[in-house]
């Protein structure tokens, strides 16, 4: 996620456009929209991408009001062939460039990218989210939220407090939000979690501070907080006006597919998840070991050096910190 945004900025996108992309991309995607349809109801399926767009637009405009300058450097897009990087696309006729590979080759490369790169990053978090959602469903008493803080401003602020530091992607946060709704959290409060959860986390905040600066980071956070709470209140209002309850609708879309198809798909999802999940777990264990060793000698200086922006080129990608989805 962050590498894509950083490269946009490098290609000449305005600061506001970079911010907007940085918010709407993690908050929403075709995959999370599809999963929302499966686990929640039509209203949420529309509300999520719409809210992501509004939040991103507000934050980006706020950013540009401070930083926009006319006549900035023109954009130089990265045209490298997405199939196998056979050609960097510079000085290559666009029509030619498009026809370097056959349709089936492109198709295969796209699917490979989705399964290994996209889902590879997501899978461990998605299963973590699934387990957490299962835990919520079993542990939390039916009426806890509905009686104490199911809706209104306090519930939204609580979701904000949980969602902002949490590192979770849009797809993985969906089952958690569905479980919360089933336990009586208002759909608006769940939306606050769905917006704030993916858009912000401790790691991306550090990178933002380094690449966009302090003021931009404050604008970024404030826009997300204010917009998601307002949008959460609005969504609760929509449910009230329509007279429908999110609780009743959750899980309904699942009936669309016969149970056999669901099982086949589930086995396939587990199948493509085993490798990345094992790798992730292994890297966590290894990291713990190496951090313990490093802290004896270097303390935190190594980590800081990795994150510090280069002088004169503040937007150069920093692989060690930009692994966030």
């Amino acid at each position, binding site marked *: *996620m962050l590498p894509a945004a950083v490269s*946009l900025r490098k290609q*000449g*996108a*305005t600061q*506001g*456009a970079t*911010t*907007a992309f940085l*918010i*709407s991309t*993690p*908050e*929403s*995607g*075709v*995959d999370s*929209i*599809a*999963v929302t349809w*499966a*686990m929640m109801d039509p209203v949420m399926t529309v509300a999520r991408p719409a809210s*992501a*767009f509004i939040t*991103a*637009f507000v934050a*980006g*405009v706020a950013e*540009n009001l401070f930083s*926009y300058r006319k006549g*900035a450097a023109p*954009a*130089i*897009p990265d045209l490298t062939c997405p199939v196998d990087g056979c050609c960097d696309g510079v000085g290559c006729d666009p029509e030619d460039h498009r026809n370097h590979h056959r349709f089936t080759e*492109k198709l295969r*490369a*796209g*699917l*490979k*990218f989705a399964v290994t790169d*996209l889902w590879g990053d997501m899978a461990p978090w*998605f299963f973590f989210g699934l*387990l957490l*959602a*299962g835990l919520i*469903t*079993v542990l939390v008493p039916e009426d806890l939220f509905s009686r104490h803080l199911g809706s209104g401003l306090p519930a939204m602020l609580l979701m904000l407090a949980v969602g902002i530091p949490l590192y979770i992607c849009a*797809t993985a946060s969906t089952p958690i939000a*569905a*479980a919360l709704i089933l336990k009586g959290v208002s759909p608006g409060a769940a939306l606050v979690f769905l917006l704030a959860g993916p858009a912000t986390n401790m790691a991306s905040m550090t990178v933002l501070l380094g690449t966009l600066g302090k003021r931009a980071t404050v604008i970024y956070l404030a826009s997300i907080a204010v917009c998601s709470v307002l949008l959460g209140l609005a969504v609760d209002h929509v449910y009230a006006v329509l007279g429908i309850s999110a609780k009743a609708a959750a*899980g309904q*879309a*699942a009936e669309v597919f016969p149970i056999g*198809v*669901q*099982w086949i*798909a*589930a086995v396939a999802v*587990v199948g493509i998840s085993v490798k990345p999940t094992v790798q992730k777990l292994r890297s966590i264990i290894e990291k713990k070991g190496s951090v313990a060793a490093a802290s004896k000698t270097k303390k935190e200086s190594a980590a800081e050096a990795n994150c510090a922006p280069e002088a004169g080129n503040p937007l150069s990608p920093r692989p060690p910190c930009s692994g966030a*989805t």
Partner: protein
Amino acid sequence: MEFILKVLGESRHLLLDAAVYILFGLVVSGLFRVFLNPNSIARHLGSGRFSSVFKAALIGVPVPL
């Protein structure tokens, strides 16, 4: 033990609900990757106080990253 089985049961239920859609989302994401033209995306985001933000926000909504 019974508790763990219960949690896993709920998780399995959620996975069954979501799995078909996850696969669908991944297929579409993969197609985006190879068939979208980065040239035209970059051209639209470089100028305009509002229009660049509008377009960037709109592009970000379907892009799965």
